[in-house]
């Protein structure tokens, strides 16, 4: 890897990591969802700094072009993050449904009993 691209890679991945930390600190991103981002960006920072690691991994898995490993790992983390997101979304939709149903049932109860209460 050339020096220039290494500096860009380190800056970009470290910047992304700091941004994630900032989002958690500002309570914009929940820590539970931030962890996967931190793990991903931390991995990027490590392979950007430790140049030999990428080559070693590439050798280990039999990839001739080392940066392809980086790409592969990046895509894998991306997909993992997306799956995590849709799971979280499903849970949210489920909870939202339950809340809406409880609200409709409570409202009906209130309407029925509200009219019996004197002064209501």
């Amino acid at each position, binding site marked *: 890897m050339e020096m220039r691209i290494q500096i860009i890679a380190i800056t970009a991945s470290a910047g992304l990591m700091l941004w994630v930390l900032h989002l958690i600190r500002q309570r914009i991103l929940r820590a539970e969802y931030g962890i996967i981002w931190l793990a991903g960006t931390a991995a990027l920072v490590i392979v950007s700094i430790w140049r030999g690691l990428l080559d070693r991994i590439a050798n280990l898995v039999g990839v001739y072009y080392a940066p392809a490993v980086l790409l592969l790992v990046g895509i894998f983390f991306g997909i993992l993050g997306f799956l995590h997101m849709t799971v979280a979304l499903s849970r949210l939709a489920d909870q*939202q*449904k339950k809340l*809406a*149903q409880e*609200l*409709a*049932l409570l*409202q*009906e109860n209130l309407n029925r009993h509200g009219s019996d209460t004197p002064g209501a």
Partner: protein
Amino acid sequence: MAHVNPKICAVIPAFNEEDAIGLVLDDLAANCPGVTAIVVDDHSTDATAERAHRPGTVLLSLPINLGIGGAVQTGLKYAFDHGFDIAVQVDGDGQHPADQIGSLVEPIRDGRADVVIGSRFLEAQGYRIRRGRRAGISVLRTVVSSLARVTVTDTTSGFRAYSRRAVSFLAEYYPQDYPEPEAIVELARNGLHITEISVRMNLRKGGQSSIGARDSVYYMVKVILSAALAATRAPVVGRKDE
């Protein structure tokens, strides 16, 4: 369990059915005077709620649109919480004539079934159906019947009666989006006894089928996938009576 005088309710999901909902309630009051109507207004934007606001009718107003699955389940939760022995599901568009409800609940009253599905196809009644739709119906019939290990001819029928045991299960677990075929598999796999009877249905009074031609491929894939996965789930326990 057989009851001499079971407490029966009709769960009526309604989304923008201002033209039909009044007629549905009239029909129910005329033909089934002892049955409590529970209208679940799925956050309609028209006058559905106003039309359903009648003495003796329970009106459940959802604060957001949940779709048919979430709406029906809301009514079933109410039915369970208020001690109903049998809950009949009736569409809010006037497709399901109230004079058929008596025969729909009969197998449950007799203790012969937990779930009774009103089928349009059990007897030849000459419903005119497009060819593509007919093929879809027949695929669903084969898939659902084999997964549920019980023959169901009309898997998408929303005209159904449920025993308290079935209600207790569905109050906890009711599928979303196009829930009818999947619900059959879930119910059967959880040991609830399903039977079908032949019913007559009306043509829709207003609105359209909830499934357009464009969505039907998605519909088939979604239904078959979720029904197949439902068959692999371990049986669960529904709501408990206190």
